[in-house]
């Protein structure tokens, strides 16, 4: 054991089967077809992506499905170099907040197709408002990774 005093290792491991529900089932099915779905609230007219069962602001389920273009602009991002248990992938990688065209919220995903070595160049490339476009995973599983990442548009 690594510590100088006595400890016991307590690994908590558990299996899960998470229900997607109708809204997210449809959303992820959409990704498989290279279609991003959002929902628009008929009350406040805000469009949220991923699609929602109900409008988070109005608490109403009177929402309509709207197709969302797989492109948008960068709101914010971070280059991850930290490592930790259970990390989604080995660093470095970029997580971004992207506002997809026609939506009223930010969408979280990876940024790819860029060099991460030079942080100054990266900052130039990923300036606020920079346009990005979804790059689809050739192999689709109807999950969030069906979008491989978003890449800057030249």
């Amino acid at each position, binding site marked *: 054991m690594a510590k100088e005093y006595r*400890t*016991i290792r307590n690994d*908590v*491991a558990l*299996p899960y089967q998470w229900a997607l529900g109708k809204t997210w*089932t449809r959303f992820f099915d959409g990704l498989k077809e290279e279609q991003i779905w959002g929902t628009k609230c008929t009350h406040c007219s805000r469009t949220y992506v991923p699609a929602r069962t109900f409008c988070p602001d109005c608490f109403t389920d009177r929402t309509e499905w709207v197709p969302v273009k797989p492109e948008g602009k960068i709101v914010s991002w971070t280059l991850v170099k930290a490592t930790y248990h259970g990390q989604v992938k080995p660093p470095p990688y970029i997580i971004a907040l992207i506002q997809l065209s026609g939506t009223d919220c930010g969408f979280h995903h990876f940024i790819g197709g860029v060099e991460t070595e030079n942080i100054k160049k990266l900052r130039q490339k990923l300036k606020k408002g920079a346009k990005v476009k979804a790059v689809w995973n050739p192999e689709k599983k109807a999950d969030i990774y069906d979008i491989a990442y978003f890449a800057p548009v030249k």
Partner: protein
Amino acid sequence: MSKEEHRIVKGQVMVPYELALGRTWCHFFDCLKEEKIMGKKCRKCSRVLVPPRSFCPRCFEDMEEWVEVSQEGVVETWVYVNMPFFAQELKIPFISAQIRLDGSDSGFIHQIAGIDLSDFDKVRERVKLGDRVRAVWSTEKKGNILDIAYFEPVK
């Protein structure tokens, strides 16, 4: 509802922790290695607790006095476990039991074995509440609770 069944995503989560034993529990496990079961006695309420405590949860005073308790005791209750579940530590079937070790004032949780566990009806004949059992030690000690391999009925 089954008609409207929507998709399910399967996953598994593992989170690692490393918990400190602290002085009291270290000493308890050290003593197990020497085939001694130690409890602690509260000077206020005089109860002897196994597993030992650094403090008495009732009197909220430090428990300072170590007491070796007997390796024999009385079965206060038990359960025959023959249902599997994820990440189960012991192989089924096993008997989980609460044993009042002589000289202690709390029930000690461990397993009863050393008898044929395959047939429950036979097990019921062998293990009864109020019966006496004694600790059987593992030959190889690791400083954990299974240094006591199990408790077996005293003939």
